[in-house]
């Protein structure tokens, strides 16, 4: 939710960042969907119009087409332009492995890869990912075929409640590609955007180092 959304309980009016974006998205054709009469089809209701072919669900007013590759699979859908990549993944594509923590880009629970770079999907608008290649935790490995980092997290007990884990793993795997810093302190600094309230940090550090070792041995 926007910071300014919370302040309006008393007045019940005012332009918010997202309603402004909606306006932009529909290019002035109609007013923001929240004020459009009739049954609303806002962000969360837009469904993927992709290979699975759920064409029964209507796109919301002002929806824009989006085509991108998610976990090596092309997805095309019409989406409210205000939708974040996080909400798009969770609500439109039903991929709930990516978690919503703070929704402000500060906790890292929503970390995914966009063209191989780690990003906070809650701070990324889905329509900005036109044609991009997205990788989420679901695309990294499966319970049957885990990615080495996922396996290292299990071996090192690098989680407790598990809510930050997919973000930690996505961040850690991107870090391997970026080039793992040689020192513990360097790894810690590079991982400091992913917080873990359970405090599994020492084990997360061990897992990343273990994964580095195991991939070294392989190559």
């Amino acid at each position, binding site marked *: *939710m926007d910071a300014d*959304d*919370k302040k309006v*309980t*008393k007045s*019940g009016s005012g332009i918010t960042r997202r309603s402004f974006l909606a306006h932009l998205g529909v290019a002035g054709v109609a007013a923001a*969907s*929240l004020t*459009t*009469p*009739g*049954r*609303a*089809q*806002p*962000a*969360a*209701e837009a469904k993927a119009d992709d290979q699975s072919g759920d064409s029964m669900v209507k796109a919301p007013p002002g929806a824009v087409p989006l085509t991108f590759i998610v976990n090596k699979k092309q997805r095309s859908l019409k989406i409210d332009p205000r939708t974040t990549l996080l909400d798009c993944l*969770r609500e439109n594509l*039903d991929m*709930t*492995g990516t*978690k919503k*923590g*703070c*929704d*402000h880009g*500060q906790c890292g*629970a929503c970390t995914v890869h966009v063209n191989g770079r780690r990003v906070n999907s809650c701070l990324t608008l889905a329509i900005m990912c036109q044609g991009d290649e997205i990788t*989420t935790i*679901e695309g990294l*490995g499966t*319970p049957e075929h*885990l990615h080495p980092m996922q*396996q290292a*997290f*299990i*071996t090192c*007990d690098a*989680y*407790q*409640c*598990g*809510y930050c*884990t*997919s973000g930690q*793993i996505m961040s850690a795997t991107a870090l391997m590609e970026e080039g793992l810093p040689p020192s513990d302190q360097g790894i*810690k600094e590079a*991982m*400091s*955007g992913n917080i*873990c*309230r*359970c*405090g*599994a*940090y*020492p*084990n*997360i550090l061990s897992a990343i180092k273990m994964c580095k070792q195991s991939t070294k041995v392989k190559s």
Partner: protein
Amino acid sequence: MQIGHKTPKNPNIPHDSAIGHVSGTSVYIDDMPPAHNEVFVEIVPSPVAFGRIRSIDTSKALAVPGFVGAYTYRDLHHNKFGPITQDEILMAEDTVYFIGQAVVVVAAESRSAALAARRAVVLDIEELDPCLTVAEAIRRDQYLDRTYAIKRGDVEAAFAEADHIIEGHFSIAGADHFYLESQACIVYPQEYDQIVIHSSTQNPSEIQHVAAHLLGLNLNQVVVITKRMGGGFGGKECQSTHPAVMAAMVALKTRRPARLIYNKDDDMQWTGKRHPFENDYKVSFTDAGVITALQARLYADGGAYNDLSTAVVGRALTHIDNAYFLPNADVVGKIARTNFPPNTAFRGFGGPQGIITIENICEEIAAYLGMDAYDVRRANLYGVDERNTTHYGQLVANNTLPELFDTLLESSQYRERRATIDGFNQSSLTHLRGMAMTAVKFGISFTNKALNQANALVNIYLDGTIQVSTGATEMGQGVNTNIKMLVAEEFGIDYDKVIVMATSTEKNNNTSATAASAATDLNGSAAVNASRKLKERIAEVVAQHFASTETGMGAYPDRIVFADGYIYDSRKPSRRITFAEAVNLSYRERVSLGERGHYATSGIGFDWSLGQGAPFLYYTNGCAVSEVEIDRFTGDMRVLRTDILMDIGQSINPGLNRGQIVGAFVQGMGWLTTEDLRYTRNGALLTHSPTTYKIPNIYDLPATFICNTIQNDNKVNVRGTKAVGEPPLVLGISVWAAVKNALSYVSGESIPTLNTPACNEEILSRLTYYKRLLERQDNNNHAFNEGFYHDEASVLLPRARSHAAGRAVRSNLSGKRARSKSGKADKGVTA
């Protein structure tokens, strides 16, 4: 009957949700797919801390496309509830008592429509003068519940004879739980007004009770299910009830599934926190630093309603001794009623607030006498054969504290490092170091005796696999893994043959919260009890099966052994059948293969009218040494090294326990060093997201972090284990105490003072204060005022700092090494 089993060799199995967690397939509440007719629920909260509702206008909300309904307290059957005293109003009637109290609940077809409807509701509230500090509550004489007290000996007599006395005031800040998964629930309406509530809660039975009561249902009409939580830490013990009941109300009204998910900002603004405390203390001690009496007045900020405050204050009072013997004690606790969200359980549950009070006193005694604080603590430590009863009369049995202290002193090279620190602080112009060892002795059991019970359901299926259900809820701590291991080890089968099922009030009734570190103790014991009953029955059948006239072997069930997936008679191990075969034999013999187990902790009890008793089954002990380095120019603090040593009995799964120790320590460190709750003058929380509320990240870990345990067999508990969830949090105090110790190198003749949290700003302000104090002393300028550097004209009202006066009280006590045999510390201000 004793039926044998063998413990497998490697108990460090992964968490039972390991694969789900790393692959993103673990399901949390908001990951559950929406039902096609689901409605989304939002709460319209009170925007003011205290006010009278003039009017509520929902007309604009009605016009929001997708609007389904708006509800107020009038839609509830009852509106009053509470786990201890039934004083809490769920939805505001004519008055609002805290920011975030629900006034209206709206439901809509989509998340965004619900949010739009929430924004469209107009509240007209006449603001009243809120009570936002403990001091103000004391002035207004408004308290929750009664006063609680524990007394031993004669403190006044001890004060009269004392070598030294220190008096002071200590402000302890609260903290947000910051579970990463905010409060969340989905409610499915069923036939005949029955409902199924899926909630991220530590306390399904509590939700069942409150939902039934407030919605006018019988308890048997409400089922509450908890698969897992994305963190709880106490914040989902009582406060998950509020969203669950409101969503259930919507589900019953609309006859549609209702989903209510708080966002992080709302969650932090609306829910209760760790209790801030304002404590006054007076302590007498000998020249050798041995405490002779402690008098303390504890004032907890309870918030607007009691919630669990009574029990939190109770635990603060029973933990103010921590690891130290108090021959004379007079400790009294009161709960101030303020206009904050009701403060609630948070890992440690008042224990940490009691413990830091005496750990602070130990640092002050050391600074006063010019001793090393380790020696003060060691001199006051509970003894093994003497000086071994608490101020409330419980024997400190199986006392491992002296062993822990002596071992850690050596292994951490405390003395050598102290000498290095002394030298460093003399030579470094840019940095300052400090070090402290603090302890924990944490009482295990709920202080409310009735809660110390649990039940478990164990079902065996014909393929030899087992389902276990208990009242314990999984929040990451690994209770399900522990229970799975206990049950598998009872039957001598592979761990992967046992699944611990989602917690549900349908299977386990009248359960206690997963709290007080006791979930494995209670629920694990109940599961073991159920398993043993089943083993007896299966052993009867198998004994008959093995009985043979050919070999002359009779049917002796007590000779039957369950091990390595097989069952055999110990006299003839070569003839064995698999566990699954034994189960099938038993089935054909029409033997029941499902069983309930119950467990109630024996030998505990406490009488608050006397302030005496033995409330705890045992104590979990530990100690930690932390060394910190402070940048003298910025106040920036890093933890250079932490050594932890704990007695946690025999571990079921050492890896899980290690995770609990490390994680709890980090959380305790965060509470005391980085997590700063800041409020506006009107009581609105400003730090309501990780943007401004800083929990420790991986970079904040001690650069060197050593964590060990000692060998001890805790005979009174299941498998000799000890509870571990909360106690290590208290060891985070070692970091705070190390900062205070560092300040003692620059505070001249005065005892350094330090608030919580000791975030960089607080440290810098203290450094600046002592620098200026010493400069002024040099200039013989007596006009210096302690409060000067805490600008009272600040726009913000930092809650933890709202008692700058407390520091003035302590500054009167300054006079380090100015020993006074008259029984009073030098009252003159040193400046």
